[in-house]
């Protein structure tokens, strides 16, 4: 499905409209699996936080927390590599007049390679996500945060270890 930005209220300001347009463009690029375009829509120093992304090692825990250019881009690239038909359906877009945007989106894909601890069993998943963005007055994303349920994701892909 194409992006359907559901309008939230009336009296849309130009700041709000700009932020909405940027974020909708981000999901369009994500749907096209165009990571370079996704990154272009973000500022050079944009912050990135995928809250459920934790890799627990013996010595330390790696979090999906850092910058778009150094953490976000590799994660998006790895996801698309492991799920080459990765796509999204945006179900709601809500914004304020200060650059904050909340997006509910369903992301789905079919696994063709191992991804992190999740061994490839060829499974397909579809999972609701909440993305929270902040967009500058110049229309560039300077903060990306996302929430989803890794337990459901793993179960749909046939992986039951909490890890």
């Amino acid at each position, binding site marked *: 499905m194409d992006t359907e930005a559901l309008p939230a209220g009336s009296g849309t300001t130009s700041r709000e409209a700009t932020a909405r347009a940027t974020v909708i463009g981000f999901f369009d690029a994500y749907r096209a699996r165009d990571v370079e375009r996704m990154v272009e829509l973000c500022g050079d120093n944009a912050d990135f936080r995928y*809250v459920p992304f934790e890799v627990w090692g013996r010595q330390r825990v790696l979090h999906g927390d850092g910058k778009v250019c150094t953490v976000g881009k590799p994660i998006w690239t790895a996801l698309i590599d492991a799920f080459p038909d990765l796509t999204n359906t945006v179900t709601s877009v809500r914004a304020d007049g200060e650059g904050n945007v909340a997006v509910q989106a369903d992301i789905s894909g079919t696994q063709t390679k191992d991804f992190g601890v999740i061994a490839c069993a060829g499974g397909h998943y579809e999972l609701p996500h*909440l993305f*929270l963005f902040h967009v500058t007055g110049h229309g560039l994303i300077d903060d990306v*945060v996302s929430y989803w349920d890794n337990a*459901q994701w793993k179960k749909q892909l046939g992986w039951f270890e909490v890890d």
Partner: protein
Amino acid sequence: MSARKVARQFFDHMQAADVDEILCMVTPDAAVSLVPLQVHGSMVAEGAAYLYELARSFPDLVIRLRRLFVTTDSTAVAEITIEGTQADAFLGAANLEKHVDLDQAWMLEVTPDDRISAVTAYWDSNQLYRRLGVKRLDKITITAR
């Protein structure tokens, strides 16, 4: 009041285990979606059941509001961290008295007369179960100390 104040009050009541006070803040037909639990229903039934279980299982619950903004359709969008020590079974996980901290995102749709008409919550159950000592997602009750 504003949607921002409504949201702060909602989380204050959640921390204080005042579920009845929360139910006084919602419209009679308020909807709830607890996304990771795949629970979609009403605040007075499914929402209240979750909040009562949370209060019983984490009597020392602390909620830290990390980010709050209100969109033009009067939806309060909040990032919170919940912290507490487990004191009873929670969402099927046995009580190992583990300390839990968990980041969550909530969306509260607020009416013009400051009532909450819909609640949607997101978190990662895998993170929660890891902190509670659960080892397998298909056997939630099996835990490791």
